[in-house]
């Protein structure tokens, strides 16, 4: 007695098809699983046995061999419970085979026979969109707009015996709330108008930002509000962002509603935690921030090795993990927001509190971030402490909605002009995009001379000025935009001993 059904296993954010072949034959009663299965898959034996019994079926008192094909592919996770149980039941003719034909099954079984969702259901669903119907947990959050997907929810293993249940189509979509859920709003930030404006510029051009200021100045508060001024995720971005979260086993519903992710790993994060890793490879924070914001608080306190691994995702928008058994790719296109104290004690340059750090330590602190990473950050904001009196008598500032609207307009303006995200422009493309007239060109030169900007510094200045011009709806960068961009520059050039102190 033999039966084969389909399932899939995860590799990175991709689901790969796997066949589950079950042979129930004569011999000493046994239950074995072969085919490069990891521990979680091998444990399926106990769950399957219990779930089969609890669902009113009998577990065959025979020699049961489960083969997971293709053989060389590593299989991991608990999603094999359901296909193995279904194949055993079908092979022993306890359930009708017709409803299973052509279907893939993915799900974990509880001992009482309930079908549970597994991490990465979205990835399995994407595979099923092309490969045929998918039977999985009724609790899984499958986005209903996945066109062409035939998802068949199964609440309990017992329901496999009722031939009418399996093909039940999904419930009608609830009126999915298209609105962003309550994100923290920019209007709650008092006394940081310049920083808010700078974040607006950064959002318009997709720039990375470094905020420098004493503890308690409001750096984190500002960073948390950046996702709220970015335009909501479009359909492709939603799926891509939700996919990474799904694979990592994190609730993907907010991403599916269009909310940009905000990730703030602690500075003790390991390299694997930041860019992904482990076995099986899991997405890191950079990938969980895909299409959103990665906030690194206390950036100089991160390990130098961890920080330098950010260079590849910042450059390519993805992370490629190379392992002995192959390469795994995770998407990682994010806006980086770094925050740093000006020195270890946090008060260098503070007008009211004296800094206790020796000047040489202050100078070294800024250089910990490292030149190559700083190259990819275009704006530097000084986030000073706000006078308490000004906090108390502050009027509500601009709302995130108003800022988001301007950002969307600026992005549309740039797209209209056929330009890529400003943050990616450089060299001739950047100069062409800025359309400097001779007067402005002279102004750029004089600014570069006064502030001793390197070539890199000039590139940054022009990029930021271009994004400001997009917000202004101007074809060419003028002296106004240039003057504003000066306010967001780094004190000294990255790569110098002192990056921002």
């Amino acid at each position, binding site marked *: 007695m033999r039966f084969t059904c389909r399932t899939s296993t995860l590799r990175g954010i991709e689901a790969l098809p796997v066949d589950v072949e079950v042979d129930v034959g004569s011999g000493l009663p046994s239950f074995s699983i072969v085919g490069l299965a990891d521990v979680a898959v091998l444990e399926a034996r106990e769950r399957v046995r219990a779930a089969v019994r609890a669902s009113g079926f009998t577990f065959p008192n025979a020699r049961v061999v489960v083969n997971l094909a293709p053989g060389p592919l590593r299989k991991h996770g608990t999603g094999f419970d359901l296909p193995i149980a279904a194949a055993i039941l079908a092979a022993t003719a306890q359930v009708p085979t017709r409803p299973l034909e052509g279907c893939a099954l993915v799900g974990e079984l509880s001992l009482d026979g309930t079908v549970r969702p597994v991490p990465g259901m979205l990835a399995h669903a994407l595979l099923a969109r092309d490969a045929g119907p998918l039977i999985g947990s009724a609790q899984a959050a499958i986005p209903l707009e996945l066109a062409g997907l035939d998802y068949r929810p199964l609440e309990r293993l017992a329901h496999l015996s009722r031939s009418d249940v399996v093909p039940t189509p999904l419930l009608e979509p609830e009126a999915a709330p298209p609105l962003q859920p309550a994100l923290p709003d920019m209007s709650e930030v008092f*006394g*940081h*108008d*310049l*920083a*808010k*404006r700078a974040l607006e510029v950064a959002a318009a051009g997709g720039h990375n930002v470094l905020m*420098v*200021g*004493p503890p308690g100045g409001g750096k984190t508060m500002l960073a948390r509000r950046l996702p709220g001024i970015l335009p909501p995720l479009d359909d492709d971005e939603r799926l891509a962002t939700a996919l990474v979260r799904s694979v990592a086993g994190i609730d993907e519903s907010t991403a599916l509603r269009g909310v940009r992710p905000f990730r703030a790993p602690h500075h003790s994060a390991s390299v694997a935690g930041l860019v992904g890793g482990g076995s099986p490879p899991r997405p890191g924070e950079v990938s969980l921030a895909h299409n959103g914001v990665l906030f690194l608080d206390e950036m100089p306190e991160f390990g130098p090795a961890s920080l330098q691994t950010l260079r590849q995702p910042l450059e390519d928008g993805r992370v490629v993990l190379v392992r002995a058994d192959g390469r795994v790719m995770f998407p990682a296109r994010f806006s980086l927001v770094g925050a740093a104290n*000006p020195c270890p004690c946090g008060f*260098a*340059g*503070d*007008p*009211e509190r*004296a*800094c206790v750090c020796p*000047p*040489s330590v202050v*100078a070294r602190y800024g250089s910990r971030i490292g030149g190559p990473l700083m190259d990819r950050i275009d704006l530097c*904001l*000084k*986030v*000073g402490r*706000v*006078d308490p009196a*000004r906090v108390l008598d502050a009027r509500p500032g601009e709302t995130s909605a108003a800022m988001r609207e301007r950002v969307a307009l600026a992005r549309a303006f740039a797209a209209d002009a056929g330009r890529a995200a400003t943050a990616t422009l450089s060299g001739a493309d950047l100069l062409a995009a800025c359309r400097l007239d001779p007067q402005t060109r002279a*102004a750029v030169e*004089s*600014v570069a001379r*006064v*502030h001793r900007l390197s070539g890199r510094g000039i590139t940054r200045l022009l990029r930021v000025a271009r994004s400001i011009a997009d917000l202004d709806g101007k074809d060419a960068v003028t*002296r*106004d935009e*240039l*003057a*504003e*961009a*000066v*306010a967001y520059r780094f*004190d000294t050039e990255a790569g110098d001993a002192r990056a921002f*102190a």
Partner: protein
Amino acid sequence: MRVHSHERAFMLTLGSPEYPPHLAETPDAPRVLYGIGDPEVLVPGLAVVGSRRATPYGKAAARLFAGWAAAQGVVVVSGGAVGCDQAAHHAAIAAQGRTVVVLGSGADVDYPGSAAALLAEVRRGEVGCVISEQPWGTPPLRWAFARRNRVIAGLAHSLLVVEASLPSGTFSTADYAIAANRDVYVVPGSIFSPGSRGCNRLLRQGAAPVTEVSDLADGLGIIEEPLILAEPSAHADRDTERILAALLADPMRPDDLARELGISIVQVARRIGALESVGAVARYPDGRYGPC
């Protein structure tokens, strides 16, 4: 006494004809001066001293007065420390003037490390000399730096304190200068700035305030047209004028400035950017803008 291997090394003994006479007159003058560079610059000069933890204001004041004095041919004397001292030395060299670095360690020791390039340049002898009362190779010792201030005061005709907080080692230099009968000038600072508290106290105790170079010119016997500091009227547009006037009076964050003046933050940012690019104001490490 061992002779140093540096070709420009020299030793001056108290009582010898080469020993600077104005230093010899001071109480407790060093018995021996060890130096590397040009001993001819050991004439009465302007000592410029200030905090190691200098604010941009202190460093700017050190640069302004040291650069100006050096350009007038006055030797600039200071201690080579980070902050105001190094700013003064660099400004003197940039103005093609002469400077004396008085170290607390041996004159051949590179301390502080950040001054190594400066010390090497001065030791070559074209812009001045590095001296110390400590024998060759003496490592930096805490007590020696307080003693060193006595030499700075003694070598100077006048002492200018550009920035000092409370408490500050700069006070000891001022005390030595008074004991040695030197003029003490002080650059006043904001009453709100902790970095200027020491300066303002010296002023209250009777030191002479310096608000422009002509205040120093009389004391140093220099007759020269004074430098003109940035004036608000040099800039056309009305809001820019108001912004510049406000920032020169009191360094401020752009956010506060926008509120005070009722100008939008974007306009403030653009005007400050323009002012900064012509060198009228400067950004401070904490994000405030003020005089440079």
